[in-house]
């Protein structure tokens, strides 16, 4: 966990609004709050709170451009999620190799 990351990335993606925000930011270079808020019924304050949580998890960076704040995705912390799932996929891949071997042995027997 990096030192800027104050929140568990799994918490950050636990909410459908935040997953949608990640998706919107993934499709753009960076976006201002009003543009992001236009996709949700909850208004700017609500969206801003969600962006705050994403920021705590290190998933979103913000910067001031003139009078507006623009938000940008940093997908790096999502690797933790990928690793978590990959761990199970490694486990089963290894098991299935053994299953394949077992079936071959039976064929020979």
């Amino acid at each position, binding site marked *: 966990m990096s030192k800027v990351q104050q929140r568990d990335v799994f918490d950050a993606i636990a909410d459908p609004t935040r997953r949608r925000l990640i998706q919107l930011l993934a499709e753009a270079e960076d976006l201002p709050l009003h543009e992001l808020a236009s996709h949700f019924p909850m208004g700017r304050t609500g969206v801003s709170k969600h962006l705050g949580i994403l920021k705590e998890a290190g998933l979103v960076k913000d910067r001031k451009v003139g009078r507006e704040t623009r938000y940008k995705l940093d997908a790096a912390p999502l690797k933790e999620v990928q690793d978590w799932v990959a761990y199970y996929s490694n486990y089963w891949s290894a098991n299935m190799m053994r299953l394949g071997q077992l*079936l071959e042995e039976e064929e020979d027997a």
Partner: protein
Amino acid sequence: MSFSLNMDFQFETTVEKLWSALTDSRKLAKWIADNDFKPVVGHRFQFRHQPNEYWDGIVNSEVLAVEAPHRLSFSWVVGEERHTVTLTLDDLGNGKVHLRLEQTGLSNKAALAGAQYGWKAWVEKLEQVLAE
């Protein structure tokens, strides 16, 4: 929020042989771990992996569905992790059988650190077996 794992495998065998490898306790032991599995819905059993200093190696399970020879489902509980594993067999003909593995409900990382250590050691052992 929970995660699902979906994996597909293909084996050159018959549906019956694959089903037997998935549901015969002694055969399961050869490719997953020692166990007291019985293909009976409601049967509670354990997979007992090699324990290590972080994890006792035990997966607590209950058989949820047995539809011979096409579908097997059981719960998979380690610590706070409560998953469901479903195996679906599909005869492709020409001596080929497709196996789909689905593991749902992956949510909490609490059990991960210990288990990761265990799997790492275990995969190394598998590599040795394969090299023999």
